[in-house]
């Protein structure tokens, strides 16, 4: 049982801007598509659908994604009728407006300090996405940004869940966005150069989570948003309810700035805390949407953490990064949306790119085609550089 007194929180709106699809249905269908090869840009994203020329120029691409997926989620949720003072925005990003920063540094090198845009700071700051959402929709409750690298969006959603559960808000727009792979100032994207030099990126350019030949992640951009709403509020307006947020947790490895703790202790503690938060046992988890980046270290550490808590093989696991690539601060939001849709549709998306499972990994990984299941609790994991661990639990809403 969840903690006494906590209000129940449900998901009533979903919005996605991803390389495999814009909008929840295109995105979920796209998750059964081919494995990611090379940087995953959202080629179909047209800023003019969301912004006039001046707004587009004054909004970094990551904040454009933030607003676009938030708008999609709000449209999906229907007329919320929430008191603006009790409507919050908790959004994540890993890096913020890196492209704008690169462009302005090149400009300063060429033309001097007097030509640096007065918009640089408001465009690049990590909270630009959350601020833009609250400004556009007039939501006046808490408006904050979570920055925990690749766990940003997962932590944002967890914090949003608390705000609704604790009674501070009736609705929160949450999720995350990232866009750190665009060229600027006549130079290639510095974000890709930096991740490549960390040797985090796949040298083969192929995303293949849990495969024995995995050699790094495929970098991506995108955004995902969820409308979280108090159950009674959602029911009173006859909203479509996708799933209930059952629990959330956050821990730190306290180990290394980029490498995960190989023992997976911090990660498995986080999963255990999420289960405790929801008041459910490990054998009640029907499916795990893994962090599954396709890096040698992450996938092994995550598999060991899952095996420690759930046994072997444990519940079926999927890693949508096989298709989406790794969208850093947006990844947790894309995976939360996938998890919520898995609950709603009784379908676990496959792990693209996985051809030959690493013999050291004993998980039941979903491959090939989406696998049907009787909807139950779905755990979504995110682990970020810095040792940040985040877990969310979603499940079918019960009477």
């Amino acid at each position, binding site marked *: 049982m969840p903690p006494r007194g906590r209000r129940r929180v449900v998901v009533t709106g979903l919005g996605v801007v991803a390389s495999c699809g814009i909008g929840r249905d295109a995105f979920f269908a796209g998750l059964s598509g081919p494995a990611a090869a090379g940087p995953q840009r959202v080629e179909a994203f047209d800023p003019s659908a969301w912004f*006039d*020329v*001046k707004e587009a120029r004054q909004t970094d691409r990551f904040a454009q994604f933030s607003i676009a997926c938030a708008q999609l989620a709000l449209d999906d949720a229907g007329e919320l009728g929430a008191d603006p003072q009790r409507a919050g925005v908790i959004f994540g990003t890993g890096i913020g407006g890196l492209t704008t920063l690169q462009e302005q540094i090149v400009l300063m090198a060429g033309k001097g300090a*007097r*030509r640096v*845009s*007065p*918009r640089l700071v*408001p465009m690049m700051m990590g909270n630009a996405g959350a601020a833009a959402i609250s400004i556009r929709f007039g939501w006046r409750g808490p408006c904050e940004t979570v920055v925990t690298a690749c766990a940003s969006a997962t932590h944002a959603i967890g914090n949003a869940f608390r705000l609704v559960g604790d009674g501070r808000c009736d609705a929160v727009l949450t999720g995350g966005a990232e866009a750190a792979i665009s060229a600027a100032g006549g130079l290639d994207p510095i974000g890709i150069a930096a991740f490549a030099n960390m040797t985090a990126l796949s040298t083969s350019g192929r995303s293949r989570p849990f495969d024995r030949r995995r050699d790094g992640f495929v970098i991506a951009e995108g955004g995902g948003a969820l409308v979280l709403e108090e159950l009674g509020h959602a029911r009173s307006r006859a909203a479509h309810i996708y799933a209930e947020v059952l629990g959330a947790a956050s821990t730190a490895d306290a180990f290394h700035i980029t490498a995960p703790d190989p023992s997976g202790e911090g990660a498995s503690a986080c999963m255990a805390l999420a289960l405790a938060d929801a008041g459910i046992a490990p054998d009640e988890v029907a499916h795990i949407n893994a962090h599954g980046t396709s890096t040698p270290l992450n996938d092994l550490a995550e598999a060991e953490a899952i095996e420690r808590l759930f046994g072997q093989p444990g519940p079926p696991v999927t890693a949508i990064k096989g298709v989406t690539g790794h969208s850093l601060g947006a990844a947790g939001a894309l995976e939360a949306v996938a998890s919520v849709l898995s609950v709603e549709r009784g379908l676990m998306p496959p792990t693209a790119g996985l051809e030959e499972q690493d013999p050291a990994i004993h998980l039941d990984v979903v491959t090939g085609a989406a696998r049907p299941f009787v909807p139950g609790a779905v755990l979504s994991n995110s682990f970020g550089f810095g040792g940040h661990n985040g877990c969310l639990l979603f499940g079918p809403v019960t009477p």
Partner: protein
Amino acid sequence: MSDDATFEKFKQCAVDVLQVPEDRVVPEASFTDDLNADSLDLVEFVMALEEAFAITVDETELDGVETVGQAYELVVSKL
């Protein structure tokens, strides 16, 4: 450069930076009320003018400049 050509160039900067229709860039137009420009837009507009006319405008010179006509006079005074 003729006065007309100078104003055309000035107007083009306003159209590009502020994204307003040409016919609204008239001397009596207020940047804030008529051209929907905030303080950062004005800084960007001044930068564009500095580039276009090869002039330098000190921040203090912008005190009291609220309309298109006032800004244009400031530019002309520097040519």
